């Protein structure tokens, strides 16, 4: 008995080391490209380096300053509004498209699937430039439409509408991606459930409501979390549109743009690191709340 238990333990120990060997390469990369930079950013955020006068340890000053910085809060609020409005719209469209595909009642569903997904394959930079041309007030599509009699569209690149214009670009880019996540989740629902529903006399809407949606709740939560993170990290689209709308998009339009401009235009690397860390933490909290909300409902069922 003793012998077996001994060999058992060594086998178990060896097993543990083999496990580490397998995840080792990942852990090394993980430590190098994720953990180390985050710690370096935290380290940076505790100092203040000036163009004149050098570097000094300032403790949590940068964080205190960021939390009282009107520009930071303005940008934070802007992406929060973006999140609350754009994410539900985008996910609803994606869900509708996925359900439509899954209903098997469409002609040319393969074509639809590809064409809805295609924008995701277009790099964000190209997509933004393309939409920038469409939004053009003089020579763009909007300009052309406005020159028709009786048409008076709002100018997408004005201060009032630029956030909506960006929301439109992001929705265009990511509807297909989210649709695919939902569609994949819908495909794995066991067909017996549908047969049972048919026997019970449930209509299509009832099937959607009582079978399909509950079954893909996990996918919905995942997609929501990705979208939340994406919203907080909004950068490419506004940063590229800034050339076309230099006054409507400020250097602190989104928190990421603010952090970027602080460090690369203003050489305020330390303060920029603090802003980035705060945004990272805020994103984690909001993503966690979304996940908690999703799984609590699941537990309640």
């Amino acid at each position: 008995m003793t012998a077996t238990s001994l060999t058992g333990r060594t086998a178990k120990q060896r097993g543990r080391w083999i496990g580490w060997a397998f995840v080792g390469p990942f852990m090394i990369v993980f430590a190098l490209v994720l953990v180390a930079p985050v710690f370096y950013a935290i380290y940076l955020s505790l100092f203040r380096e000036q163009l004149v006068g050098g570097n000094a340890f300032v403790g949590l000053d940068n964080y205190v300053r960021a939390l009282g910085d009107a520009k930071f809060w303005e940008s934070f609020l802007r992406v929060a509004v973006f999140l609350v409005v754009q994410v539900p719209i985008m996910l609803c469209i994606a869900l509708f498209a996925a359900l439509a595909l899954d209903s098997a009642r469409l002609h040319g569903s393969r074509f639809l699937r590809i064409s809805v997904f295609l924008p995701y394959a277009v790099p964000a930079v190209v997509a933004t430039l393309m939409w920038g041309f469409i939004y053009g007030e003089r020579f763009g599509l909007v300009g052309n439409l406005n020159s028709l009699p009786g048409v008076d569209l709002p100018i997408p690149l004005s201060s009032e509408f630029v956030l909506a214009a960006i929301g439109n670009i992001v929705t265009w880019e990511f509807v297909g991606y989210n649709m695919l996540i939902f569609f994949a989740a819908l495909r794995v629902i066991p067909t017996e459930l549908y047969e049972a529903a048919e026997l019970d006399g449930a209509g299509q809407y009832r099937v959607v409501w009582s079978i399909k949606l509950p079954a893909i709740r996990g996918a919905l939560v995942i997609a929501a979390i990705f979208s939340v993170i994406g919203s907080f990290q909004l950068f490419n689209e506004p940063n590229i549109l800034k050339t076309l709308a230099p006054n409507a998009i400020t250097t602190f339009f989104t928190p990421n743009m603010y952090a970027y401009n602080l460090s690369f235009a203003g050489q305020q690397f330390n303060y920029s690191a603090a802003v980035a860390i705060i945004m990272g933490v805020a994103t984690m909290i909001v993503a966690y709340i979304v996940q908690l909300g999703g799984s609590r409902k699941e537990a309640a069922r």
Partner: protein
Amino acid sequence: MNSTPRRRILGAVAGLALAGLALAGCSAPSGGTGGGTGSADDLDAALEEGGELTYWSWTPSAEAQVAAFEEAYPNVDVELVNAGTNTEEYTKLQNAIKAGSGAPDVVQIEYYALPQFALSDSLVDLSQYGFGELEDQYSPGTWGSVTVGDAIYGLPQDSGPMALFYNKTVFDEFGLEVPTTWDEYVAAAEQLHTADPTKYITNDTGDAGFATSMIWQAGGKPFQVEGTEVTIDLADEGVQKWTGVWNQLVENDLVASVPGWTDEWFRALGDGTIATLVTGAWMPGVLQASVPEASGDWAVAPIPTYDGEPATAENGGGGQSVTSQSENPALAAAFLRWLNSDPASIEIFLESGGFPATTDDLSDPEFVGVESEYFGGQKINEVLTQASEEVVEGWQYLPFQTYANSIFGDTVGQAYADKRDLAEGLAEWQEQLVAYGNEQGFTVAE
């Protein structure tokens, strides 16, 4: 990527021409406490001895110049790197300086950004190599832009004295006189826009480079720098003169809200939507390259003035400097001296469409008298070289001008967007600049 648009032909063309060279190895010497002491004799000795240099530039003429230099001095090997156009390059340079290694030996820096690098001891003071003797070779405006006190932090390569570029076809069609004063300019703006509401005298959505040059022309001196002591007054007499004129255009919707250097802008320059541009002498090259359809439409006149007395300002333009990280500053300085004063090098520069900073070329009858086909045969360099002699003296940029320009849209740009008094936007700009300057360790007075 960043806010500052490419504002020179050099930038506009080089981005395409040399894109392939970008990132082609940034193996500059490490560490280095270069920039010690030396003399003019060292330069010739260094050229004789030879060595390796790295040169960052985005100018279209750089490649040919380096090739010509290497042919003349076979012992010297120059590695040319296109590290990006203006702010992109400055960001990399700033990072290399911060890291203590990775900076090139010789680097292209525009005049507005030079004080920032000069201040932080990132550049070698070239007066030790007798560069002071070269002063007479350059127009006073450009020479002033590369010197801080007695120190010489670079040699000018090109210049951009401002002039009035106007679409003659549009002017003739609407019976407009070429304005010689700003009051006439405003009157022409009204006349044109009233006659055809789709046409504008010019475009302006708020551009820091343009605004500072206009203030410069009006005699304003909003930035005064003495070491780390900075005075900012964006409401001085010159500023008020400029806003007094420009407010009339902005508030009454007489300028097109087309941002510069965009596709819309080039098209508006081509079809007569934008009837004039007040900009630097490098503009003809840009027009020829990017607005070919308007060939024959455009003409050049001296910039309008406030009181009839000729006065203009520099807009854009820049030169090259030697970095303190250079391990062979004497050789780097020798290359720089050749690059921006040797006739062979300047000839290549002129062929690429550049507007020189060297007085010999600015007064060369062959250069002055050339008839531009694009400008309907006009001898445009007569106007432009004249302008280079009328640049108002005493202008200074901030030692953190790149940052200042980056937040111009956040502040003055908002006044443009709302079509209200630009003075309010300038006050906001000043407030943020003062706060930033103090934070960065300068002593800023208002």
